[in-house]
């Protein structure tokens, strides 16, 4: 402790010898780090694993299901047809599975309700049309009521917390009714406040950035009522999009995302074998003619496999990194000025018996001071930038927060950059010719 106090005192004296270069070093380092931290915050949340304890067990099956031979440079469709999903759900190997897609609907409260909001006009809301395992698979918390007991069609919906508040002004609305595109539905459950971010169950078309859907509708009901996907859908045959209840179920009309939960390596291997066997069977009846190995994509790899991440985000991250590097070079140059101002003392210390290693140890006090001051400026700057962006993009406000690991990484990065900024100038100063320096 006494030695640390001494090193801090030596550092303070060295700062006093060249205060302007030191202040500019801190300023430039802080600006570079602040901008980098702001970008890193968004990047961290985009790369964040929303279900770290189980994401390795959640898989998205991919099969080259085109009804024509498509081998070279031809990827498996990212969305499935209804009949393929039903076939893939025939296995009892997955502990859970859920097919899903998104759509939109106009919603209004039932006119004879006593609720004060009953005279509100119909409002457009987002739908996630899915199956019951969706809620347990992605750990969606239910505040009131229960999710559907099975996957059969039913006129029952589940509301998100925000949707319940928006429609009713309260969340205890289980059993109440509402209209979806003029059809009556009963509310079977209301979710607790929940947002998966990034929403990895929906990696296509920037779906991973969006908020939780307002209303959840059973998949079979969605097909019965002709709710076509408002995102990606495609057909490989003459399927009529308007006849979802019939053509959608029997023809090659692809619009479903599909997830399975495979709890261990044995289950994963068994389900891969099941898929291979199923593809072979399909080939025998003339379907899925492409040579293919079915694929199970882990949730942790889904963004990369689907190339879902926006290129702008990556480009912005690179620009920010380059900006930090430019700031580091400038800070290093300024730091060199300070060390040149202190070169005489460094040479004298070496002449009187300090090794370069001992001087490096002494330098750590300098690094800690630089890091502390840079952090003091960089953190507020980053925080203001992050808050400013979340004001401009309110839907992305979930990314404007810091947790322990993010803060820890920022501190570590600040220490590393401060060391880099100090290392080269200090090394240069400690390699000077002692006799010349002391004679000068």
């Amino acid at each position, binding site marked *: 402790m006494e030695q640390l106090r001494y090193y801090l005192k030596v550092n303070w004296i060295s700062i*006093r010898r060249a205060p302007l270069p030191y202040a500019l070093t801190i300023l430039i380092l802080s600006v570079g780090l602040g901008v980098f931290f702001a970008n890193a915050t968004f990047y961290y949340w985009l790369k964040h694993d929303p279900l770290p304890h189980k994401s390795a067990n959640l898989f998205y099956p991919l099969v080259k299901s085109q009804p024509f031979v498509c081998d070279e440079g031809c990827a498996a469709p990212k969305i499935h047809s209804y009949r393929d999903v039903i076939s893939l759900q025939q296995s009892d190997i997955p502990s859970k599975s859920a097919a899903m897609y998104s759509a939109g609907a106009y919603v209004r409260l039932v006119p004879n309700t006593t609720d004060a909001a009953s005279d509100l006009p119909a409002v457009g809301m987002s739908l996630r049309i899915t199956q019951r395992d969706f809620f347990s698979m992605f750990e969606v918390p239910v505040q009131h009521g229960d999710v559907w007991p099975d996957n059969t069609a039913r006129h029952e919906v589940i509301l998100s917390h925000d949707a319940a508040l928006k429609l009713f002004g309260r969340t205890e609305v289980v059993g109440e009714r509402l209209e979806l595109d003029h059809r009556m539905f009963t509310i079977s459950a209301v979710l607790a406040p929940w947002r998966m971010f990034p929403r990895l169950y929906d990696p296509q078309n920037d779906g991973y950035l969006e908020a939780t859907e307002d209303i959840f509708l059973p998949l079979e009901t969605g097909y019965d009522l002709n709710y076509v996907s408002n995102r990606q859908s495609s057909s490989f045959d003459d399927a009529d999009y308007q006849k979802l209840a019939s053509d959608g179920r029997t023809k090659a009309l692809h619009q479903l995302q599909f997830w399975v939960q495979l709890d261990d390596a044995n289950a994963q291997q068994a389900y891969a074998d099941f898929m291979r066997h199923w593809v072979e069977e399909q080939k025998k009846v003339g379907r899925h003619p492409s040579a293919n190995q079915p694929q199970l994509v882990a949730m942790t790899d889904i963004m990369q496999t689907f190339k879902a991440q926006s290129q702008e985000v990556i480009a912005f991250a690179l620009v920010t990194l380059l900006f930090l590097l430019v700031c580091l070079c400038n800070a290093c140059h300024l730091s060199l000025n300070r060390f040149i101002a202190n070169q005489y003392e460094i040479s004298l*210390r070496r002449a009187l*018996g*300090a*090794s*370069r290693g001992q001087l490096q140890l002494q330098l750590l006090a300098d690094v800690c001071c630089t890091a502390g001051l840079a952090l003091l400026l960089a953190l507020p700057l980053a925080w203001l930038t992050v808050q400013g962006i979340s004001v401009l993009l309110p839907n992305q406000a979930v990314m404007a927060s810091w947790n322990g690991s993010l803060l820890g990484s920022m501190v570590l990065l600040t220490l590393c950059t401060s060391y880099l900024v100090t290392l080269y100038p200090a090394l240069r100063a400690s390699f000077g*010719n002692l*006799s010349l320096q*002391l004679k000068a």
Partner: protein
Amino acid sequence: MMLKLRQISKVFRTDLIETTALKHIDLEVAAGEFVALTGPSGSGKSTLLNILGTLESFDDGDYELDGISVRGMSDRALSALRNEKIGFIFQGFNLIKDYSLFDNVELPLRYRHFSAAERRQRVMDALALVGLAGRRDYHPSQLSGGQQQRVAIARAIAGSPRILLADEPTGNLDSLMARQVMELLESINQQGCTLLMVTHDPDQARRAQRQVQIVDGQLSDSAIYDPLQRTVA
């Protein structure tokens, strides 16, 4: 033997020219001896002193300090050797003006494994020896040249070195202060510390037990150099 040089040579090289500073120097200095190193400007005195102090490397030959060969030593080992065995006294004092006298004298001790109490004791003893214990919190700029050189001597002896290397220690002082500094150095030498001093002053050189004269990078042991005559007698 405290110092033992065998065939030491040093050449300074630039892109255009090579300058031979020292040629095949052989020198031995016994423990406790007081040796004056004299010679004209540019003869290689300071280069030799810097090599003896391990502040400068040499190209050929071998150098043993207190029985330890310094050739090929690592930076760490060389620094430790310098710290423990050698005390430096420079012509320009080389005190750090931002530090108090106490901090200046303590500086080399910071790189030894002394406790804080021992460091403090050694610094106060050294300052007392040079008559400046009462001014421990002064800064160098508050002292005269002679007093500053006494602080430099205190710094040199605080670590109890085996040898003191003094480069023109009185070069920047008037005659009264120079005499006081010389008396101080002699008393330290009489306590057993080897003293090797570079000087231009024949009076001071005569106070040494032995004079070593260097001309054009070569030694003339025991020869007496007369700076007025600029010849070797």
